């Protein structure tokens, strides 16, 4: 079978599996977040922490829950890394330095999983499983909770109530993420991913060399890292490491995990606002952009522009033989467009233009399909911008899902879309202007600039993948990227929840002949156009300096 035919079958199988699963999973998530009943274990949790899961929260209270829970998470994870040498199962690793511990804490709480450390020689068993993996669950659950709060803002009227943060957090974790992770993790072990709490195994090879084989609870972490669109690898090589991603099946499963919740949430949204078609209009826009990028990157990697790739006869630098060019491209697009950032191949060595497409995927705000929760709420903000633009064209007050998009709503949406571009562009400019930026580059010229731009884009959009030649473990980058991750995660949430509150208070406006039909393909087209124009105008100059300059030169 030719590689191209295998790739076609693979993408077809992936889309088929997503189509099959999105329906039961989307409906299930809608039921989870709408149900009045609590599971016994949930009741026990609420009782033991003294939270009332039935108390409705208005947006400021909901936001306070999100922010304080996350702040406590940052502190907890920071302390855990600083004292890991004094805890059991430390593997002899030293405590993490303060700036790196802050960076890592910010990274995992903000669902970014940018890693300025190498897991195999830095993080103990306890830090990995009780620290990092826990945030993989709860940071994902926080994202889903905020998305659900925004959906409730659309679904409810004449109330400011958005639901209960504690109940959304706990339900998302216990009823959605944990069960799916267990299933995925067991399949990964069956493929060959390791799962143990042993010691580093020193062995002697047939040639008489010594080799140290890594231990770890890898499969359990791999499952949630992909399912929760987190992306932080157990090892430095991330999902390229054979212990994380042993064969073609585990590779496709991991891509499926990246995409399954983000592509199912629009169904949850449709169900909760009472019109499945509205959800399909959103998911179609996500799918079109994702698929376009898959085609572009796969084609570019097979065509392998670039002097070195051309000389080698293919773009296999930074890719694994058992995985290959096509599946690596599919993974790369899926991880950058979902805010995951795990990698099965190194994006730094992709062709210049492929790197540009991956950058663009993140710059779109990671909405196609985006991170768990963050993809849906980001896309709904874009939908608001799209109906606003359409309203301007015909001179009508815009409305979406029976809610007026007035001055307050559009201001909040505009603030949302300005945050990450500001962080990315200011961050990159400052780093380039200071000596720190230049010192951290592995590559020279346009590609070196791309490394810095990629780092700030990845951090501010909470992706976490890197052009990993970039030497980011310095106090300057640990601190500024850490701040970008926190601001890029939580400032947008402030505007999303404020918007949700404002929508929930409105009374619904009846649909008229002049209402823009947001469930039709025309609107999907408008949404894709808005997304590309807003991002294109913002980032085109920066892209021209980096990947475009490199791509056109080769």
């Amino acid at each position, binding site marked *: 079978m030719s590689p191209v035919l295998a790739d076609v079958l693979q993408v077809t199988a992936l889309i088929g599996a997503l189509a099959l699963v999105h329906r039961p999973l989307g409906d299930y998530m809608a039921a989870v977040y709408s149900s009045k009943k609590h599971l016994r274990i949930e009741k026990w949790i609420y009782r033991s922490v003294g939270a009332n899961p039935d108390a409705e929260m208005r947006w400021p209270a909901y936001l306070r829950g999100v922010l304080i829970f996350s702040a406590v998470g940052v502190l907890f994870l920071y302390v855990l890394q600083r004292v890991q040498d004094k805890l059991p199962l430390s593997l002899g690793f030293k405590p993490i330095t303060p700036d790196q511990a802050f960076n890592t804490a910010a990274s995992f709480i903000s669902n970014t999983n940018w890693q300025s450390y190498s897991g195999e020689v830095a993080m103990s068993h306890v830090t990995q499983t009780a620290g990092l993996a826990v945030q993989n669950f709860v940071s994902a659950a926080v994202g889903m909770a905020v998305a659900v709060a925004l959906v409730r803002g659309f679904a409810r009227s004449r109330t400011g109530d958005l639901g209960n943060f504690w109940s959304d957090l706990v339900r998302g974790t216990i009823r959605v993420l944990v069960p799916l992770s267990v299933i995925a993790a067991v399949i990964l072990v069956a493929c060959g991913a390791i*799962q*143990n709490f042993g010691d580093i195994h020193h062995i002697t090879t047939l040639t008489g060399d010594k080799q140290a084989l890594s231990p770890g609870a890898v499969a359990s972490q791999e499952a949630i890292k992909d399912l929760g669109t987190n992306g932080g690898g157990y090892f430095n090589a991330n999902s390229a490491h054979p212990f994380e991603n042993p064969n073609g099946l585990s590779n496709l499963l991991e891509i499926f995990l990246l995409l399954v919740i983000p592509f199912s949430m629009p169904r949850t949204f449709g169900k909760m606002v009472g019109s499945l078609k509205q959800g399909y209009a959103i998911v179609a826009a996500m799918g079109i952009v994702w698929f376009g990028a898959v085609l572009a990157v796969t084609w570019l990697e097979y065509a392998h522009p670039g002097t070195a790739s051309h000389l080698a006869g293919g773009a296999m630098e930074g890719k694994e033989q058992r*995985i290959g060019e096509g599946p690596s491209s599919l993974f790369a697009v899926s991880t950058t467009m979902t805010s995951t950032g795990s990698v*099965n191949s190194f994006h730094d060595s992709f062709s210049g233009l492929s790197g540009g497409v991956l950058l663009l995927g993140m710059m779109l705000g990671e909405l196609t399909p985006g991170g768990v929760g963050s993809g849906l709420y980001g896309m709904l903000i874009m939908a608001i911008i799209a109906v606003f633009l359409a309203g301007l064209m015909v001179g009508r007050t815009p409305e979406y899902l029976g809610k007026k998009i007035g001055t307050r709503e559009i201001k909040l949406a505009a603030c949302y879309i300005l945050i990450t571009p500001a962080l990315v562009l200011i961050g990159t400019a400052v780093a380039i202007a200071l000596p720190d930026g230049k010192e951290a580059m592995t590559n020279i010229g346009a590609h070196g600039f791309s490394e810095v731009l990629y780092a700030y884009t990845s951090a501010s959009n909470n992706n976490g993948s890197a052009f990993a030649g970039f030497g980011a473990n310095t106090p300057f980058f640990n601190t500024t990227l850490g701040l970008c991750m926190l601001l890029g995660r939580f400032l947008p949430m402030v505007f999303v929840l404020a918007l949700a509150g404002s929508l929930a208070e409105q009374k619904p406006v009846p649909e008229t002949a002049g209402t823009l039909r947001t469930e039709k393909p025309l609107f999907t087209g408008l949404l894709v156009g808005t997304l590309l124009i807003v991002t294109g105008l913002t980032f085109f100059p920066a892209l021209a300096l980096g990947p475009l300059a490199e791509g056109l030169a080769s």
Partner: protein
Amino acid sequence: MNNSVASTLRLAWASLRILLVLTVLCGIIYPLVVTGIGQVLFHDKANGSEVKVDGKVVGSELIGQSWNIKGTDKPDPKWFQGRPSHSTYDPMATGSSQLGASDPTLVKNVKAAKKQVAEFNGVPQSEVPEDAVTGSASALDPGISPDYAEIQVKRVAQHNGLSVAQVEKLVKAHAEGRTAGFLGEPAVNVLKLNIAVRELTRK
């Protein structure tokens, strides 16, 4: 003011307790349950798919190894060679070169690798496949392409006193196709292949 400080502290306290409960669930119970299932059902895989020769562990079938002459950085002609590795197959330093597709250093590396592989195996440079001259992503790639195995057959046969047909047969037997026929790429596991070569020479 005091009121809001107090309520913030109350909220922080509740947050910490809920985080601790979720830590027990997701950070302790969850990995232990998966470990339990994995250790019982897939014991060898959960522990790293280790390979034994004469009762001693000589590696993991998932982790590539260096096949250099001991104590040197020269490839040993007796063995099938793996892909270039950024860290000489050290599992404590995984990752790749991170060099861009047009980077001058990478161009130099590829050129040198192409020359070396061609001379080492006595084939023209045009027959050297891409995976033989490019570094893997993990630095631990256990596999090579069937093409790369193919061009090494003659040399390995010669240096082990075996016939080309014998070694050819081993390569065929160790070629792993795509998972389920269409997932990933075909690869030959270098460690398993070299073990088979060694067994054949000791017969």
